[in-house]
């Protein structure tokens, strides 16, 4: 959707992202939500809508922990890593329609020190395809499923190990500038990248996202809440899209078509901006190749130019399109993409210190989840009174 009467990312907050947090999931969530409310200039009790995600803190826990007096609506968006960006659309609809005033998006998890990922319940669609066709063949993780896409793409479009490596190394270089990042103090060079053990080839260790303990929160409102003291961050447009079919990868035709292509086409049609107008992109980076795949699906490159964008034009700070300046899921932490929205907001406000993209006015954020669901939003800096 795109509306002249757009909503705002009014406040953002997060904990530090770590491998093992001493605090409980609830304590992490409260820290991030308090920070986001303070950043938004509202009382926590003014939160009256909540959108969450599977496996993270739930709506009722948030209401109970914060003693929220009057939450009017709650939702869970269940398209995996595409959910956070998609939730911006739902939150915008809520606040613009008047159904709620301040909608909280929150992620809080002990993703590393809590139950191991492989033991967690699967929320993928069409579970019988998973059990009847995939598990019996020895395939049961996102890394394994997406590796099929990665290898075919590499074969068809000439993407190489060097491209995958640069996505991992760029993310790490950015995280090394971000004190909240799980990998802030851990550098990564090409030798170490190449020494990573095989997880699901072509994905090696450093092609894979982190598992993280931490929390982050975003408050969406119809009012920017800045009192002209700092730039407002406007949600210019948000779209989601689904692959054909969304519940199976193997028999898609074309095989590499994903939901983001549809979402991005609608998004760029709906606003007077294009990919070239973006000052940075926060791209859902569950694995290295998904960044390349989504940059292409979102219109930042074609299959012929994606390699050049990554290695020559540049995806690091100072490059043509800085990607994941916080370090992303690969090196900041795995907050299922809500941390991408937090980072984009801070970039637009000019709060990012040594990793600031100078003069950032427009940032695109993508989401990728389940078996190829996609979402995309563009946030814009709005100076002065809104």
């Amino acid at each position: 959707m795109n509306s002249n009467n757009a909503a705002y990312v009014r406040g953002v907050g997060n904990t530090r992202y770590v491998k093992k947090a001493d605090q409980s999931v609830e304590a992490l969530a409260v820290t991030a939500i308090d920070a986001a409310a303070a950043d938004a200039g509202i009382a926590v009790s003014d939160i009256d809508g909540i959108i969450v995600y599977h496996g993270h803190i739930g709506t009722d826990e948030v209401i109970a922990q914060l003693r929220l007096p009057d939450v009017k609506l709650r939702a869970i968006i269940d398209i995996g890593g595409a959910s956070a960006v998609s939730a911006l659309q739902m939150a915008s609809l809520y606040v613009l329609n008047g159904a709620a005033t301040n909608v909280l998006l929150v992620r809080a998890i002990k993703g590393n020190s809590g139950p191991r990922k492989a033991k967690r319940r699967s929320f993928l669609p069409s579970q019988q395809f998973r059990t009847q066709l995939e598990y019996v063949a020895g395939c049961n993780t996102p890394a394994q499923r997406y590796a099929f896409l990665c290898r075919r793409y590499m074969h068809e479009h000439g993407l190489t190990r060097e491209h995958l490596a640069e996505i991992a190394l760029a993310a790490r270089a950015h995280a090394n500038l971000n004190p909240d990042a799980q990998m802030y103090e851990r550098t990564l060079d090409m030798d170490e990248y190449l020494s990573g053990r095989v997880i699901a080839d072509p994905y090696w260790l450093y092609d894979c996202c982190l598992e993280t303990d931490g929390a982050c929160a975003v408050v969406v409102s119809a009012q920017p809440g800045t009192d002209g003291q700092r730039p407002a961050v406007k949600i210019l447009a948000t779209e989601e899209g689904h692959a054909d079919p969304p519940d199976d990868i193997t028999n898609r035709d074309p095989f590499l078509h994903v939901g983001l292509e549809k979402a991005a086409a609608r998004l760029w049609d709906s606003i007077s901006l294009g990919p070239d107008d973006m000052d940075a992109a926060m791209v859902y980076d569950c694995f290295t190749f998904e960044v390349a795949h989504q940059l292409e699906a979102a219109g930042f490159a074609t299959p012929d130019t994606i390699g050049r964008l990554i290695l020559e034009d540049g995806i690091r700070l100072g490059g043509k399109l800085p990607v994941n300046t916080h370090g992303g899921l690969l090196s900041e932490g795995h907050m299922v993409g809500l941390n991408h929205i937090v980072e984009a907001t801070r970039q637009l406000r000019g709060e990012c210190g040594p990793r600031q993209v100078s003069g950032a006015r427009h940032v695109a954020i993508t989401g990728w989840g389940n078996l190829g669901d996609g979402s995309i939003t563009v946030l814009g800096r709005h100076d002065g009174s809104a």
Partner: protein
Amino acid sequence: MDLRDVPAPDLEDPLFQPYWAGAAEGKLVLPRCSGCERVNWPPRSVCPHCRSTESAWAEHQPHGTLFSWTVVGRATAPGYHEVPYAVGIVALDDAPVRLMGTIVGAEPSALVMDMPMSARFAPAGSSPEFTLVQWEPTADLSATPTNPGS
């Protein structure tokens, strides 16, 4: 590859029962929609193309080409304890569908995109036992055995 610990799926699920029954006899059996004649895979109870709820299951040639694959280096799947192993997607020769299956009979490093593959029917599981459809590189087209299960 020891497949005894691989958990059996629901072999009585009507959507898949003829597939597993066929595999147990060394046959690759897939559903063809009775309304529009399409081979729908994965199978669905309602044909997304014509809304028919009727399918006829038919045997297919157990041959195809390797469309993509991954080499699993970290064991995560129930029953698959030993790594590395390869899982692939095979594009069938005689129907426009692709099947996921474990790749056997070749070192993962010897796999090549679009190489000819043939099915191998392997006993798996313990309680209950069932038959898995695996894929291996076709040894030599001129020497393709008439019964790949042998």
